[in-house]
């Protein structure tokens, strides 16, 4: 037998390099944009950007879990909007409700949406892409139903609700604090619990997962519920941050979460991805979006830029994984030379 230590360390360096690469790109983008527009480095800009990135980050972590199982959740944007709109409408009617109750309500709405996705995928055995493509439209339609064609405006937001996004916990802005806690819990869940590891195993090889007694339906219900729950929670924070909820809130948001995952090294084929990668991926994505805004690029180009970033990340991945495969082939010593 041949020792594989050399190859192994090489592999892990490549994995570690992914986070490093993303980090370097973040720094480069920041320097370039900072030089062109000094407002980039102001405290207000950073706060704004990080508040945006925070919500994106934890919804992307939920998205990552579905992608690790080999699926995808296209409905996160609609779930976010549905949760935000529902909570906003409830607030209009019952302004006295404590923000905590509203947060719980939004989260439960998201959880239910996600659970339904998981049920259709896990028990109904419908492909995740098809399922969430359908529910994306269904949930988006429900936003209009819930709103009765109205929208939640600045005046409807109670001061207490506004504080959800503006307030601090332990000296850190609530949104960033939430993202941090969710990231830590997710990291622990994915790396240190049996269920977490089963998610990776299931995404790696579904048939083999069956051989060790992993229940695929349960895994699907779990990850889609988590993804929906985080999107629902995000919906409440979103409305608190932007002070409005409309039928087209967070339209196309799923693309941003998927992009953050892909940039962060999550394999679209399942089985590979980690929280730190996704956090950096989201940060890079947020920095780029913010930069485009500061440089004065209009929304239309922003969308194209978004697609372009995904493309670059995917091509980058393809090149890297091809290289690794080739390297591994060449290092595999199968010949009986010299024996």
């Amino acid at each position, binding site marked *: *037998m*041949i*020792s*594989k*230590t050399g*190859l*192994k360390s090489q*592999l892990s360096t490549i994995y570690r390099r992914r986070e490093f690469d993303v980090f370097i790109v973040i720094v480069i983008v920041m320097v370039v944009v900072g030089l062109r527009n000094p407002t980039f480095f102001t405290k207000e800009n950073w706060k704004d950007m990080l508040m945006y990135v925070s919500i994106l980050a934890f919804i992307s972590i939920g998205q990552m879990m579905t992608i690790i199982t080999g699926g995808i959740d296209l409905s996160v944007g609609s779930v976010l909007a549905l949760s935000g709109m529902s909570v906003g409408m409830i607030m209009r009617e019952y302004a006295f409700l404590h923000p905590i109750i509203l947060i719980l309500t939004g989260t439960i709405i998201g959880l239910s949406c996600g659970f339904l996705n998981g049920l259709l995928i896990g028990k109904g055995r419908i492909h995740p892409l098809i399922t969430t493509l359908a529910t994306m439209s269904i949930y988006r339609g429900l936003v209009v139903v819930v709103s009765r064609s109205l929208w939640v405006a600045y005046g409807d937001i109670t001061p207490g609700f506004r504080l959800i996004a503006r307030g601090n916990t332990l000296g850190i802005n609530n949104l960033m604090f939430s993202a941090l806690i969710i990231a830590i819990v997710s990291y*622990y869940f994915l790396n*240190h*619990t*049996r269920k977490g*590891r*089963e998610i*990776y*195993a299931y995404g*790696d*090889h579904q*048939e*083999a*997962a*069956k*051989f*060790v*007694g*992993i*229940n695929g339906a349960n895994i699907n219900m779990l990850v889609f519920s988590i993804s929906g729950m985080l999107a629902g929670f995000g919906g409440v924070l979103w409305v608190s941050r932007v002070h409005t909820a409309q039928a087209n809130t967070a339209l196309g948001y799923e693309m941003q979460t998927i992009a953050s995952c892909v940039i962060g090294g999550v394999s679209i084929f399942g*089985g*590979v991805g980690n929280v730190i990668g996704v956090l950096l991926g989201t940060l890079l994505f947020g920095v780029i979006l913010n930069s485009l805004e500061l440089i004065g690029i209009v929304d239309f180009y922003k969308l194209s830029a978004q697609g372009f970033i995904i493309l670059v990340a995917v091509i980058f991945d393809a090149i890297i994984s091809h290289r690794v495969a080739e390297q*591994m*082939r*060449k*290092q*595999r*010593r*199968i*010949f*009986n*030379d010299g024996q």
Partner: protein
Amino acid sequence: MESILTLKNITKKFTGTLALSEVDFDLFLGEIHALVGENGAGKSTLIKIITGIHQPDTGEIVLKSETVSFHDARASYDHGIAAIYQEASLFEDLSIAENIYMGHQEVRPFTRSIKWGAMYNKAHDLIKSLEVNLDPRALVKSLSIAEKQLVEIIKALSADAKILIMDEPTASLTREEIDYLFKIARKLRSEGTGIIFISHRLEEVFEIADRVTVIRDGKIVGTIDKDHLNVDELVKMMVGRSLQTLYSKEDVQIGGPVLKVDCLSRAGEFNKVSFELKRGEILGFAGLVGAGRTEVARTIFGVEKPEGGKIYIEGREVKIENPRQALELGIAYLSESRGEFGLVLPLDITQNITAPILKRFARFGWINRQKERETAQKFYDLLDIRASGLEQKVESLSGGNQQKVSIAKWLAANANILILDEPTKGIDVATKAAVHRLMSEIAKTGKAILMISSEIPEIIGMSDRILVMHEGVLVREITRSEATQEKVLAAALGEA
């Protein structure tokens, strides 16, 4: 003898097909019980019922004296049943240690968090106690096929199982590693473990089994004691007929070389492979799974680029950059998995047969359907494809008939060199014989066939000449007259 596992009257249907029919089977304490039968006979289904992956439609599973039913693999694991599966069942992107313990990791009492350190240490000790050299933290995808098989074995052994199932555990091991595995198996047997051993290599069955049960077409044909074993008898029980009819190879006038491969190499796959393929010849390509045969075929077909060596067709050196060029040179490749390079499953038989040659029927971009149909019909009749008609979708055909369609396709395209990769894998005996007959007839017309097969009887029965590969190197050439199972196997295992 005390029985540790008894299956009574097990029947299992899969959407219409009867996979197992009223199967009775028993396993004693401290016994190695071999289960043999042809591909598709029902061995794997039986194993999956014992391990809880499938549930029987009727019948019962009795452990010692307790009747049990397993709703999933973990339930059977908890009852002390572990298995080494034939198909790769490892998680490529996870570490060796995690693969070994997936599904039953040790966790801390309150936090329920996995004891990673303890897991790596236990895996390290286990690997060491088996005297192999593997890093428990290495990712499985960085391992060779033989190393992966070892991980499978280690994984099953880690369970301290009362019942251990080995489904073709030796398929890609060297003789040394097989001896080692057998040593472990005998040790476990002496400790009272019941082992179910499945192998296609009858020599191994003779070497290690205490009893042999033969299964055919989902039914148990019989169980024989070690002392009464006899190869001819066993083969007859497995196949249900004697071997001659299965391999209808006719003697053909062998012509000059059509394909010559000189020192072909690809790092990590195969090294300095040289051979000639002659007109009218069936050249058998033997070796273990992972020996590099498929890789050589794919390189000749232009799927991968050679990193060294030359390919000659009809004496002229050629550079084959892609499969299209290979087809233009008259080379066709039927891959092991018929989906991949072979057939477009949702399309009908006509469309599949004429796919590579549509240009012939086209005028100004419009296809003459009449002419297309006529050509398809010709080959449909020639190859005796059994279907409801030319319009039947290929996905609804049986494996053997799919194989015929893909052969028809390349014959219609005037291929002179057919590379058949495991042409009869997973198809039933009757169709197998038909495919063999067809191969023989194709060779008679002066075309050349390179047949990759892991079934040694097929190699011996069908080949004019046999090349044996071992770990990426051509180790031996054997002529038809001097070929024996033992010679081919020894060479494939690298002992020649």
